[in-house]
């Protein structure tokens, strides 16, 4: 026999009709005999019905107007020449794809906090890539320093270096980096059509001969390092590239090639802020 407390424990399943047959019969028998439980159950069910008619803190109207505008912009951007073919970037999988290693969102580690602050100051946010590295503060620091040395300092233009990063990532099939660097290139003044030509047609639109030669060298060395010829290097030298420029171009290739593999191995998702 069920007592009143037992019936109360089963009350939600009872009013939702989710009790197995055996329990259903036992609850029904008890309710038949017990006035207190009948009252309780009537009130409990009325409470649920009341909740069903309540909507939790209605979404404010400005939320919709903001969102309509953002969606309109995004749709318009898409209808132009695609920067990244839709099939390369498939956040569709996000619904099921958890990264294999979660990034560090917040931490008490001083070193990590300091580096995050530095990243945020330069990039505007901390990309998921670095949040993953943050599980190992020394490697985080090392890799962030590589980015700073190669991308923020150095002798080559930021545009060339982002182009190298984009083509290397394209060839390695790393969506995260392709999306990230394609949007960087647009921020740096390239048109969507130019980015498309760069990624998919092996072109170097808008780049000076020296830059085009370095881009070609870096792309080739990522695709086929053993097959790199002296002619390819001489072509860059003849266009005016010194040894330091060659090393820097290869350094950028090397850096993003390693990031590509790291990101794709752990299935780290692109952070939305990076796509903007």
């Amino acid at each position: 026999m069920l007592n009143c407390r037992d019936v109360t424990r089963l009350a939600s399943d009872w009013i939702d009709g989710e009790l197995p047959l055996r329990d259903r019969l036992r609850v029904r028998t008890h309710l038949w005999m017990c006035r207190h439980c009948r009252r309780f159950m009537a009130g409990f069910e009325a409470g649920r019905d009341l909740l069903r008619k309540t909507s939790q803190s209605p979404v404010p109207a400005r939320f919709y107007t903001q969102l309509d505008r953002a969606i309109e912009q995004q749709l318009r951007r898409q209808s132009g020449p695609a920067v990244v073919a839709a099939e390369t970037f498939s956040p569709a999988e996000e619904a099921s794809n958890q990264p294999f290693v979660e990034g560090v969102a917040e931490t008490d580690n001083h070193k990590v906090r300091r580096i995050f602050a530095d990243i945020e100051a330069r990039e505007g946010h901390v990309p998921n890539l670095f949040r993953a590295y943050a599980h190992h503060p020394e490697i985080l620091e090392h890799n962030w320093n590589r980015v700073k040395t190669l991308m923020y300092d150095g002798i080559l233009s930021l545009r060339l270096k982002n182009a190298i990063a984009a083509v290397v990532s394209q060839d390695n099939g790393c969506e995260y980096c392709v999306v990230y660097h394609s949007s960087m290139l647009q921020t740096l003044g390239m048109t969507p059509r130019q980015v498309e030509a760069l990624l998919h047609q092996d072109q170097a639109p808008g780049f000076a001969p020296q830059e085009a030669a370095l881009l070609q060298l870096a792309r080739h060395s990522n695709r086929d390092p053993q097959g790199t010829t002296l002619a390819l290097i001489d072509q860059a030298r003849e266009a005016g590239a010194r040894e330091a420029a060659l090393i820097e171009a290869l350094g950028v290739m090397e850096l993003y090639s390693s990031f590509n593999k790291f990101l794709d191995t752990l299935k780290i998702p692109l952070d939305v802020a990076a796509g903007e």
Partner: protein
Amino acid sequence: MASDTEEQALIDGLRRRDQSAYQKAVRLYSGAMMAAARSMVDPATAEDLVQETWLVVIDAIDGFEGRSALKTWLCTIVANRARNRLRSRKREVLTDFQSPLDPAMEARFSQGGQWSQPTAHWGAESAEALMENEALRNCIDKHVQALPESQRSVLALRDMQGLKSEEVSQIVGLSEGNVRVLLHRARQRIFTMIEGFRKNGRC
């Protein structure tokens, strides 16, 4: 909730990147998505996440396979993003999972499990009639907000947004058993509140 054919028409619109379809979907589903996000993050962050998610959906909709309802799919994406965001934040610890009874309810029974403080006669007041009472509505709001986050999200998704137990379980990432307990605990708190309100008119 949208019928199957209406939902399919909406999905087709989203796939065509039809702006009016997005406007419609955003209004239909943002409430549930917000409830899913708020199970893990604060209200302001939840709003941001829902906005971000809609922009992702524009690219992602082609990959939607219809294995779950559109609403569940959207809520799952939001919940995953919220989870990523707070991964290392201290999460609420779900301790007394095993007991389906709220302590306030537990105290109303004798040792032998009989009512010692039974419920007053509830009368025939319908839910509609009760909803007319603005003070009561505000009081429910207040108490829903005051629930522990896991209880609040389950209650919001299940009762207010009308999702099924298994869908809620998928979204919040807890077993169906745990979802039932959380739901039951939340309902008891709200029940106790409504009962008190009816007795003395105070929230």
